[in-house]
């Protein structure tokens, strides 16, 4: 399994009410995660690969993996570009 894991060397996060705010350590830019973005972020904990992540979200939202998949892939891709995510 190639697990998805957040890379804490490149960010710091905090919770503000129902959102998670992530700051990129390199640039100082902020990103606010709410709703499904926040849930997806929290599920990226090193115990799931991409398919398991999609499957969990699909179950939560009663949608098929085929519908959830592209959005999750886009989110993963964005996190990798930012350096917040690595794949082990």
């Amino acid at each position, binding site marked *: 399994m190639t697990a998805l894991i957040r890379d804490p060397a490149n960010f710091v996060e905090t919770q503000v009410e129902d959102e998670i*705010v992530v700051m990129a*350590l390199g640039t100082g830019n*902020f*990103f606010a*995660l709410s709703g499904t973005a926040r849930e997806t972020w929290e599920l990226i904990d090193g115990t799931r690969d991409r398919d398991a992540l999609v499957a969990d979200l699909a179950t939560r939202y009663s949608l098929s993996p085929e519908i959830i998949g592209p959005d999750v892939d886009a989110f993963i891709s964005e996190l990798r570009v930012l350096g917040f995510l690595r794949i082990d």
Partner: protein
Amino acid sequence: MQIAGAPEPSPCSAAGIMASETRLRRGVVPSRLDDQTLQPGRYLLSSEAFLLRSKSGIGLMYRKGEGITIEQPECADEREVALWLNGMLYSAIAAINGLLPFHASAVAHNGHVYGFSGASGAGKSTLAAALSRYGMQLFCDDTLVLDLSGDGTITCLPGHKRLKLWPEGLRLAGAREREQVAAHYPKIFADPVAGTVAKPLPLAAMIFLEVGPAPQILSVPAGERIARLQDEHYTCKIFEQVGNLTRVQRFKQLAQIAARMPMHRFSRPFAAEQFEESLAVIAKYICSESSS
């Protein structure tokens, strides 16, 4: 720079500390701070001291526990001196003493402070002054000093600066016109019709001014609150520089402040002919908030 007519603050209070730390004496101001040489028109800042030399030759030195030393050329414009004392220097003293200088004007209503923040020219001073016509006393203009030392509500220190308005703002606010701020600076000193406040009060909300098609009060999304605390104004830069925190420490500090500071957005048209309508909306909002 003790506020005239104000009760003597406790020496250990934030107000007392600022009163003590802003005591003024004349003397020679050095040209170096630690290992750095000061250039005219620039300033130097550390966690304990602030040094400035204006292009006109005015020298200002503050060191924690020692107050302010001013070196003033004979030809110095007293109005320029006052601008420096009440502007960047005051904010630096606040920051060095653990207070947060915030770029905002504010009013007081029912024992609480409502701050108005936004970019320069957003209308903060005009709005705060105009709310005087609704009985809300001016709490401060341009810089709101916050005491974050308590665990709960943030305490605001009463303003140290005179109200300054552009001529159009003076007309819209209905404030009493005084003299021009300085020969090279055409803003006008003014007195708000409901007067000012001279004692610290708790912060009710920070309201960020924006331009929009119709006047309305909007929420600030939780994730935006941290970002709202950072801008390009010198007050923010001074606070950041004095703290000398790492990026992570600064982020955590901002998160703590954001969690304690109630925030809203006031979106309204910027056109003068719609000012009264906008004023009525924000006045009504403050009155309803303060009575709940």
